[in-house]
């Protein structure tokens, strides 16, 4: 089932979360933009059910519909520091897509995209 995003840190005292919260916000469309897989600004989060990913492994990691090509997905954790030296926990869902897609104007195109 579609869900907003399944990667959620268990403990965040001071956290830098690159995209772990689903919140509508608008960005300008262009005719050459890809179309989404799912309506309603939702995505799938594939992953092992044993780790809490209710979509399971058989879920499309692509956010781009009418797509054919390479897909890379990674749920990342790491430490970062800000300019004052303060440490932050970073949790992010990063994905790459490279290949053919049919854009909103119906034209088949090629492109490289990152899910950030």
């Amino acid at each position, binding site marked *: 089932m579609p869900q907003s995003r399944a990667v959620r840190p268990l403990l*965040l005292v001071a*956290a*830098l*979360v*690159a*995209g772990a*919260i689903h*919140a509508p*916000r*608008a*960005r300008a*469309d262009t005719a050459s*933009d*890809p*179309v*989404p*897989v799912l309506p*309603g*600004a939702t*995505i*799938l989060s*594939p*992953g*092992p059910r044993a780790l809490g990913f209710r979509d399971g*492994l*058989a*879920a*499309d*990691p*692509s*956010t*781009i*519909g009418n*797509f*054919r*090509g*390479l*897909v*890379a*997905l*990674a*749920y*990342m*954790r*790491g430490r*970062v*520091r*800000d*300019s004052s030296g303060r440490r932050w926990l*970073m949790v992010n869902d*990063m994905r*790459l897509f*490279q290949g053919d897609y*049919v854009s909103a104007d119906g034209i088949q195109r*090629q492109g*490289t*995209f*990152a*899910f*950030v």
Partner: protein
Amino acid sequence: MHDFTGGITPAGLVWTVRLPGDALTVAPRGNVVTVDARDVAVVDERAAPAGKTPATVSFQMTWKGRGGRRRLAAASPAFAGLFFRHARAQGTFSGTEEGFDFASAMRGRARSTFAELGTEQNGSFLAAATECPRCGALAGWARGH
């Protein structure tokens, strides 16, 4: 807490931003993928104090796949793909906005807790491959098509 994302288009495309084609390097066998993305425009949407701030992020990541490929597919939403049985990723990240910036710790490459690497098709491409399995794009992409 900071929340850096690529935004959502009015059409509903979630957090998906265009990269230059040469930002990605793919090994001939498709088992190693690297990305070097610099100054990608994003928005930092903070919960407290609430606000949206234009920002940029940079990241250098490497995915590695091994163990052969397996087919993963679903009916709704429909997709089909060939993914390495085991994949992992690591990388470094940095970002900046007015009044705040961050970078991966010197000895702190971020690592994946789960990763996937493969090729897939969905939507109209999946329908075309179903109609003509021998023309399906997956094998072509696996060869570097």
